[in-house]
């Protein structure tokens, strides 16, 4: 079983590399042989630009520091969303009346994209960092709450009964049954929330900022610099991928009981 697992893992890596190389080739061919070359630089020019900006400043900062600035905003906003959202969702899942009152509100909020909050955030908090934290937080929090709620409310009642028969008191049932049983679902919410907040920071920076990955794209647009725009977009994609993988790694560690064949 273990061997098979490792094989499929290397398989995934091989395919991943193949698809990246394939994308580069198609991009390069399209630029070389079609009229796309008028609006699109070759991938190697973009990659070269990324490499260069690891040491050379764009608007006062090298690229990694811009990304770091965006990451810092995400971590503040996302962290807030987690510490408010997870307990709130679990409480909703545990109390029927609490859920009946609060759940419709979040079902209504769910379809509103984080970006729709930008105008309000700017009116309330100005154009500084606070409004960005706010936008990121509201973008992430809804799915975090709704998933934590789903996890806590769908706990198998047979397991609760089994714990009670073994002498568990209500507080122990919460701590030793409800919480661990909700963890996989909580992580599903954290995963969605993280990608929402990464998207939200870029959007917020595109509207008002003087640093960050989103700012790189907008200034690229203002100066007609396609290479810079593409370099910004690729960095955003890579960092988003990295964040999601990191979270998945943590989840694997915490939920190994939930994974067949480990």
């Amino acid at each position, binding site marked *: 079983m273990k061997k098979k697992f490792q094989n499929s893992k290397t398989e995934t890596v091989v395919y991943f590399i193949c698809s990246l190389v394939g994308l580069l080739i198609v991009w390069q061919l399209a630029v070389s042989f079609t009229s796309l070359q008028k609006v699109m630089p070759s991938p190697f020019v973009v990659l070269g630009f990324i490499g260069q900006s690891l040491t050379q400043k764009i608007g006062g900062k090298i690229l990694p520091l811009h990304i770091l600035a965006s990451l810092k905003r995400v971590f503040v906003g996302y962290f807030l969303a987690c510490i408010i959202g997870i307990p709130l969702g679990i409480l909703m899942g545990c109390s029927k009346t609490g859920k009946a009152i609060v759940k419709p509100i979040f079902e209504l909020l769910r379809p509103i994209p984080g970006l729709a909050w930008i105008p309000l955030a700017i009116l309330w908090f100005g154009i500084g960092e606070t409004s960005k934290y706010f936008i990121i937080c509201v973008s992430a929090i809804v799915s975090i709450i709704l998933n934590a709620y789903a996890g806590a409310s769908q706990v198998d009642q047979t397991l609760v009964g*089994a714990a*009670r028969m*073994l*002498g568990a008191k209500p507080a122990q049932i919460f701590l030793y049954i409800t919480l661990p049983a909700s963890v996989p679902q909580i992580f599903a919410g954290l995963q969605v929330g993280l990608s929402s907040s990464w998207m939200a920071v870029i959007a917020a920076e595109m509207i008002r900022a003087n640093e960050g990955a989103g700012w790189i794209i907008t200034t690229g647009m203002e100066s007609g610099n396609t290479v810079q725009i593409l370099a910004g977009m690729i960095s955003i994609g890579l960092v988003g991928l990295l964040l999601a993988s990191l979270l998945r790694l943590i989840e694997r560690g915490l939920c*190994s009981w939930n994974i067949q064949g480990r």
Partner: protein
Amino acid sequence: MISCKHVSKTFENNGQKNEVLKDISLEVAENEFVVILGPGQCGKTTLVNIMAGLDHETAGSVTVNGKQVDGPAPERGVVYQKTALFPWLTVEGNVGFGPKMAGLPKKERKEKAKHYIDLVGLSGFEKSYPIKLSGGMRQRVGIARAYCNNPSVLLMDEPFGHLDAQTRYLMQEEVERIWSQDKRTVVFITNNIEEALYLADRIILLSNCPTTVRNEFKIDLPRPRDYISPEFLKLREEISKHVETTE
């Protein structure tokens, strides 16, 4: 000691009444192994839940060791039809769950869990998660978990219903062995006559829904029993006649 007196249970769903148990009276003596034999869907799990304190009878009363049952209590251990192990805990964590709830220090808890893991023949699997175990092994964990909490009464609800025939025989022998080594008052539910005969001091036969006690059989065969001895087969024949007439 368990005593059910005129226990009835009627479920109500949207005004629709479903009478499942009707005037069930039975007694189980201390350290007696009683098997309740009943057809599918006749309310066996409902009866176990009432004895456990997880559900309430609509009429009658249940006492265990002279006390009225009015909620779950660790003196009554349950082994479930669908194992109901905690999937996020290892074998050791599952078996030691009851002692942990009671506040036993970690070291003593581990020793105790180890003792019962060894008893059910799962040494070496202490750190495994339930998802990695076979059906038979999971039921062993369920039995160890119930035993480890030191209940005076064990309620086993069709624990082997989902196992293949081969594993089922093996587990019947295991339960017999474990019970002989560490006697408790046991109520064991099944719909399998052979299983009942192999394990029971006394068999209580239930009718179809609404369920009442149909018949009782005292089984005096020496243990461990032989599935193909003439006495065994004769009793099996006799009981199956009664089972058939309940249909």
